[in-house]
């Protein structure tokens, strides 16, 4: 234990602007209305695996625990099932908030490597081809992660392969859309304007 670091949370560590930051994103506008009822967490199929439940995340945003939130596994556990959001009595778009947190977390390098890798590969895939080749994505992902995992899923891959659901063509020469230049221009414009 680091004796110099108090366990109690000090206000000076908090980032009160964090709440405003989330409030500003499209979909974040109700966040201040949370009554901490826990309906979101109770609904969430992933909450058992989460370090903090969705409700706690909202409380922590309110308290300004920016780092704790952005480096927690919770935001990466969200499967975007929208059940929490559907039931929230304060109409908080929790799923959108989770997305916003993922983006901030990646931006600030706090995301767990596998989640960040997956998302970045996906983006990369689309920016290159305009479409997502599932096979390529899966391959790159497992190669980037671990050979062990890649092998453990090989059986599954084989099954899909046999069923014609993963083709070699797809992995090695994915389809590229005709308007890829147009798409890239669109992407470049967004990047240029700053708010990605």
């Amino acid at each position, binding site marked *: 234990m680091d004796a110099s670091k108090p366990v109690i949370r000090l206000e000076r560590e908090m980032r009160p602007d964090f709440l405003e930051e989330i409030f500003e994103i499209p979909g974040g506008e109700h966040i201040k209305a949370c009554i901490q009822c826990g309906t979101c967490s109770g609904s969430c199929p992933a909450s058992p695996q989460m370090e903090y439940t969705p409700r706690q995340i909202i409380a922590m945003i309110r308290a300004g625990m920016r780092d704790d939130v952005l480096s927690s596994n919770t935001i990466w556990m969200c499967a975007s099932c929208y*059940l929490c959001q559907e039931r929230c009595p304060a109409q908080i778009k929790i799923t959108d908030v989770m997305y916003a947190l993922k983006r901030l977390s990646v931006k600030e390098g706090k995301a767990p490597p596998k*989640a960040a890798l997956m998302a970045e590969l996906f983006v990369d895939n689309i920016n290159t081809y305009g*479409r997502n080749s599932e096979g390529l994505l899966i391959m790159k992902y497992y190669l980037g992660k671990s050979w062990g995992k890649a092998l453990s899923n090989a059986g599954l891959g084989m099954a899909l392969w046999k069923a014609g659901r993963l083709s070699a063509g797809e992995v090695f020469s994915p389809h590229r859309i005709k308007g890829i230049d147009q798409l890239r221009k669109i992407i470049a414009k967004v990047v240029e304007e700053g708010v990605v």
Partner: protein
Amino acid sequence: MNTYTYYPGCSMSATGKAYAESLETVAKVLDIRLAELDDWNCCGATAYFSVRETLSHAISARNLALAEAQGPGRDVVAACSACYLGLNKTNKYLKEFPELRKRVDSALDAGGLKYDGSLEVRHILEVVVKDVGLEKVAALTTRKLEGLKVASYAGCQMVRPYGFDDSECPVLLDNLVRAVGATPVPFAMAARCCGGSQMMTNEDAALRMTKNILLCAQDAGADVIITTCPLCQMNLDAFQAKVNHAFGTSFNIPILFFTQLLGLAFQVKPLGIERGVAKPGPALARFIS
């Protein structure tokens, strides 16, 4: 004949190939024309939205802009729930958030495109149930799937947050099952999450979710689970063996796309049923010939 601008999405050419095949087959019988959107790009799905917000809307908007030019006034129809949600969300957010709209408009402009916001985004299930109608489906049924017990799995993103069916207890698939003479079983997990894209990054959690869905269907005595989304199908089907391995269960429940079920009732082919990893049991096999 109704014509729709069809947005297939990435999975339809790979893991969801059977969905694409059966949809094409069945659409002919149902007399709906799905004009594929030329040169569409990926909808962005869940993963893209996670990391790039404006961008995900911008690339979705490219599809909408193309669709508006290609088939003015035609509904855009997606078969994948994630694509349906992604396109729909962009379509709605562009109306709801003017700031976002401005940014997206200027990005589209850079690509020489323009989107007026005139289109509706719909899921193919809605088109079948509402535009074609259950009566017609029943009338086109040449072999009633009598005695087949079906668990209708709607999943998440088709019914939430913009669903056209009840977000807690969806009924449309069940109605369709009845229309083709099969028996829907009570299915408490009909609109619960299969793990979605978590299967890649967070397999333990996703397998548990999938397990609960399979268990619920088994408890209800289902011979087959039907889905409306390639990702759901993939998780429930291809990962069944892994679930069995992880939880010591012995599920063998075939997972069909609802279009495959319709195809069986209409007795048309191809339906791609052989592409399923979990193989049909006797109750279902009776109807596959």
